[in-house]
């Protein structure tokens, strides 16, 4: 192979297959026309160095995109990474910790730390790869950024976040993480919530909940947690309060209020043996225990309701705040 062929091959190897033959033909003619009639190897070298680095020349020939994610999508890409990566990373670590605690029961802190760190990094990288691939596909197919609203107009300024209060991202992330931990414990190992005591050196545990009753209302709990995760995600994406968001927040709070009341309204949800245990430990009659327990639950529900109402109201106030 002579120098010209080698040069042309280096140019076209970086081009789409469909283009290669044509560019090869064009470039070959162009190079030959730049050479004098009786050319020497030196003449060839002179012409080729005039054309310069084959990769740069290939770049000029190629009009396809040479980047994974272009400027139009880049902001949305970064935004999504910043939201999703921390969540996924923490969830990865938490799942590992919960799994190892549930599986083995005994806890080795070094293993737990190393394992959760590895899972954290692993989950973060997986999420990073997935988001990058999705955005690269968007880029190739000219899909608009999921975060970009249609066309910007001056009037947007009036309705935009400038007048509304920002929502802290950390709050949303913490809420999502707790929802997931809560779900995992309630769904996979509700028996772990209970009264622990040692009997002859063996750790015993009386579950707080009546597992049959709990599993019957489980679909509602899952729905409620799902709703909470969606609401938090919407808050994180928006970053600022607005009326629609405040309304979703309100619905979410209503829904959790209903679920909380359904959980605690009947005492059947609780395991009767835990009352017996409390009664024997505290030396109070079972009737008094259940009575006190009932009052405690009512107070708890009252606090939860006040919290939910306050949160809903503050959502609306923050969305109209000047």
């Amino acid at each position, binding site marked *: 192979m002579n120098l010209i062929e080698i040069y042309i091959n280096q140019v076209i190897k970086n081009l789409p297959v469909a283009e290669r033959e044509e560019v090869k033909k064009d470039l070959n003619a*162009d190079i*030959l*026309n730049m050479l004098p009639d009786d050319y020497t190897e030196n003449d060839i070298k002179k012409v080729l160095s*005039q054309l310069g680095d084959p990769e740069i020349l290939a770049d000029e020939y190629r*009009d396809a995109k040479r980047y994974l994610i272009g400027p139009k999508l880049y902001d949305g890409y970064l935004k999504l990474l910043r939201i999703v990566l921390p969540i996924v990373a923490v969830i990865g670590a938490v799942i590992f910790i919960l799994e190892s605690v549930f599986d083995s029961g005994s806890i080795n802190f070094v293993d737990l730390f190393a394992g959760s760190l590895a899972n954290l990094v692993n989950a973060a990288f997986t999420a990073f790869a997935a988001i990058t691939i999705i955005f690269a596909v968007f880029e190739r197919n000219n899909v608009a950024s999921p975060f970009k609203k249609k066309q910007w107009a001056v009037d947007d300024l009036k309705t935009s976040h400038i007048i509304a209060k920002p929502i802290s991202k950390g709050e949303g992330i913490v809420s999502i993480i707790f929802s997931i931990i809560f779900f995992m414990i309630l769904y996979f190992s509700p028996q772990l919530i209970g009264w622990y005591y040692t009997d002859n050196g063996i750790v015993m545990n009386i579950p707080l909940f009546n597992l049959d009753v709990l599993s019957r209302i489980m679909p509602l709990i899952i729905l409620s947690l799902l709703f909470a995760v969606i609401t938090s995600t919407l808050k994180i994406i928006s970053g600022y309060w607005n009326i629609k968001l405040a309304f979703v927040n309100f619905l979410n709070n209503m829904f959790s209020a209903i679920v909380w009341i359904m959980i605690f309204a009947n005492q059947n949800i609780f395991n009767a043996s835990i009352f017996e245990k409390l009664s024997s430990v505290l030396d109070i009659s079972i009737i008094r225990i259940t009575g006190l327990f009932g009052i405690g639950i009512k107070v708890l529900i009252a606090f939860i309701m006040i919290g939910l109402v306050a949160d809903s109201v503050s959502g609306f106030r923050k969305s109209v705040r000047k």
Partner: protein
Amino acid sequence: MDELMSNLISELKRGTLIINVLSQLKTPKYGYSLVEFFEKNGASIEANTLYPLLRRLEKQNILQSSWNTDSAKPRKYYKISAYGEEIYKKLCKEYFEIINSTNNLIMEDNNESD
């Protein structure tokens, strides 16, 4: 300074590149003949910029091409298409408006500093 200046100049020239090329393609020409022509006329353009540009313009239907294989060296001749003529006219109109307003700006600036 030198590198900055040459970057700025090449950026300035890039705007007129296509007009320059289209202006010369009323009659068919091949790549290297254009390189030589522009070099003689002080509007030099690198071969490695021109060849890919000609190909792009052809893909956009602004140019049309034909091969001449009569001589020992095959040549691909480019010529402006009817569609390209329309585009060229519009570009020229824009070009004159741009230099007029730029000229005015530069003149005002000169007068003020005098």
